[in-house]
């Protein structure tokens, strides 16, 4: 699946949290094993579950207190329904979202 120039945000679950990626930054999305592989520029990201695409997400900048205790760079924070969402900066995807070597090995079995 390729979603170039799409509007809104792709919402996904990974590592117990909910993450959002601007759809316009997503180059591809394919099912891999029990999860998904998402292409964002040159990066390969992983998702445990795809929650869907939302058109509107009110993104607030991450507050200093968050930056103080969490080293990752984000595009901001949002809420979808009652779920807090970390909005990913496509240039600096957090380590928890990276498609790791184990998942690459699993890919070969598909």
């Amino acid at each position: 699946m390729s979603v170039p120039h799409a509007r809104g945000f792709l919402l996904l679950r990974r590592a117990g949290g909910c993450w959002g990626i601007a759809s316009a930054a997503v180059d591809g999305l394919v099912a891999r094993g029990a999860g998904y592989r998402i292409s964002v520029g040159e990066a390969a990201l992983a998702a445990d579950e795809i929650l869907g695409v939302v058109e509107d997400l009110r993104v607030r900048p991450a507050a200093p207190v968050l930056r103080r205790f969490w080293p990752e760079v984000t595009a901001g924070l949002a809420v979808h329904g009652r779920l807090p969402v970390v909005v990913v900066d496509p240039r600096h995807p957090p380590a928890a979202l990276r498609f790791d070597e184990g998942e690459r090995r699993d890919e070969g079995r598909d």
Partner: protein
Amino acid sequence: MSEPIERETRREGTHLLVRAGEYACALPLGAVRRVVRAVMVHPLPGAAGELEGLAEFGGEPLPVLNLGRLVNAPPGANPAYPVTVVVWVGPAGAREMVGLSADAALEVVHVPADSVVAGDGGLLLGEAPVGDEVVRVLNLEALGREA
């Protein structure tokens, strides 16, 4: 003539006392927005131990910090009714909303400013006697500052 000043001083000295592990901590009441049953927290992988994760509160994303970890409190007994204290942190012009997870909300107390001693210049404003216990008096403005 001095009555309004006394009232203002008394208001500034009013704190919410909460239990965090073995410690009792006094939070300035003016910075407390709400006390709720412990909210559901979604973890942030790679975060420091003090940051439990993110929650939703009133339609806004809420970073939740573990108060016991913030003040290095020895762990206490399993809390029967853990709470999240939603507070404002940071300086007045740039305050932000944060949740503090604590073991229990205890009571509202008055802590006179001149009874607070030996702070660290940061989150810990100092210690003060309240009843038969020494409590940690916290400066929540300091928590919102960049490290």
